[in-house]
């Protein structure tokens, strides 16, 4: 059969963002894949060098809106590590809350898009409708549906009063039942299973070799979660499990994400229960000495690492970050080997690609 190649992207409906794939096709089977990146390269690392430490909080938040809390949070952690700032105890819990609500919404969006890619629009709408509960939390507590703007150097910008707390508790309670129901649907629904089981397999061996992170790694059975291995904020005070699956296919990654979303609800409730009273931000502006520092966190898509080098001025000498998706792209070559055309968007979506993160 003749081989021909089709372009996927860069402006393609199945891709939320521009990314260009050249796929070699034989009949309906994929024989080769070439990834061409750079359409969302905005030169943000050079912008970060031209902005002061405060402006960079907002700049890093605009890296990507789906993990928009992880970026400023980790950036602030890097600055705090460098400047030796100990953030207030209450702020630690508030950071976890912001992190988890974003994880919940981001993972739901991903599994929703998965339903959308298989054309199951009613399921997609149902997932998004459940996600609206999380969006309401974000809008009601933080003031925006995507970019929370929760972090600042040395703590957090927002606080939770009694009114907000009771709003949060009712919303979280309301989320629980639909979340369990969704999990059952993704686990049991014959149609979803038919399309996702055994598709896009990434064996554990390759996952380790390629250094993939986040739900992609955990879907392949690697129990690595920064929240557990190198806890930050208040994660060492909270209980949760590192979710893994062993089948290493599209379905396992979706199930890992859904279970983590369910965990996020319980983590937020734990925060509400255990959060001490007190200030949320120190009452002085930070002093940033020269030096270098590293900070890591578990973004919805996996390990996020920030490297900061300061020369003592009010702008960083170098700010570099590596996003989780950056590590997962190459795994597509293995996942897509001999798959069908219809599975391409499904597999791409299963690594939860964040292109704006990757290309900065």
């Amino acid at each position: 059969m003749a081989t021909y190649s089709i372009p996927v992207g860069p402006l393609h409906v199945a891709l939320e963002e521009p990314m260009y794939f050249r796929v070699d096709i034989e009949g309906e089977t994929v024989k080769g894949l070439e990834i061409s990146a750079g359409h969302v390269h905005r030169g943000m690392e050079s912008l970060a060098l031209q902005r002061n430490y405060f402006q960079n909080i907002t700049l890093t938040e605009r890296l990507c809106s789906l993990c928009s809390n992880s970026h400023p949070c980790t950036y602030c952690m890097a600055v705090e590590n460098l400047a030796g700032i100990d953030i207030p105890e209450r702020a630690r819990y508030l950071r976890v809350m912001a992190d988890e609500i974003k994880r919940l919404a981001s993972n739901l969006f991903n599994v929703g898009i998965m339903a959308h890619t298989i054309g199951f629009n009613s399921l997609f709408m149902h997932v998004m409708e459940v996600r609206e509960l999380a969006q309401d939390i974000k809008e009601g507590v933080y003031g925006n549906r995507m970019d929370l703007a929760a972090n600042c150097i040395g703590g957090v910008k927002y606080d939770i009063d009694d009114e907000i707390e009771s709003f949060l508790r009712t919303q979280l309670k309301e989320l629980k039942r639909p979340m369990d129901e969704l999990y059952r649907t993704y686990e049991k629904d014959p149609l979803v299973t038919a399309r996702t089981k055994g598709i896009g397999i990434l064996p554990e061996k390759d996952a380790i070799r390629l250094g993939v992170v986040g739900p992609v790694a955990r879907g392949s059975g690697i129990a690595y979660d920064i929240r557990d291995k190198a806890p930050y904020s208040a994660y060492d005070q909270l209980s949760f499990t590192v979710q893994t699956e062993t089948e290493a296919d599209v379905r396992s990654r979706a199930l890992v994400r859904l279970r983590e979303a369910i965990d996020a609800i319980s983590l937020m409730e734990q925060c509400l229960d255990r959060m001490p009273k007190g200030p949320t931000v120190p009452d002085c502006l930070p002093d940033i000495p020269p030096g270098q520092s590293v900070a890591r966190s578990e973004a919805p898509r996996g390990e996020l690492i920030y490297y900061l080098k300061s020369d003592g001025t009010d702008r960083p000498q170098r700010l570099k970050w590596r996003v989780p998706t950056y590590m997962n792209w190459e795994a597509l070559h293995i996942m897509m080997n001999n798959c069908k055309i219809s599975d391409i968007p499904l597999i791409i979506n299963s690594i939860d690609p964040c292109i704006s993160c990757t290309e900065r």
Partner: protein
Amino acid sequence: MTPTTSDSPFKAILPYRDVIHTTDSNGNHFGWVDLPSPEALQITGKRLAEYGARLCTITAFNKKKFAQDGDMQMVYNFDLDGAVLTVSIPVTPHDRRVPSLVDYFANADWHEREFAELFEIELTGRDAPKRLFLDPKIDTGVFNRLVPLSSMMNGASTKQLWETIFAETSMPDWAKEAK
């Protein structure tokens, strides 16, 4: 917290190096090593790979910010089961060659492609890397050249926009009337 020298998790891996060991407020471990030359990276990389380290990220920067074609530094971050080891190597303007780590860490590929195009660094021990992000229209080494340039022209477009705004918006009447 103060640097500790005992019970460092890094001693076992790099016994012959001076690893500075620090911890953050959550008790996570960080190690910092300065290698004398790029060549030393290969041995260290091999050793880390044998130990089961995972490459997290590679960073390159100018030792003096915005200095074109000056001394550079490359920083490699490795994950050792929860601890982060940061390995730095110097790169001089005369010799921009750095050994590639793709043999030990498959995921070094994208990182190496990226800094090769952004900083014009040559990699030894692998094929010439293909471009990763940059449009063919943009020159390599953009980070060295265009950053100072854009910091000079910084705000050119911003300034233009603001001039339009100043031209089109006027102060409220009460401000004009008040004398």
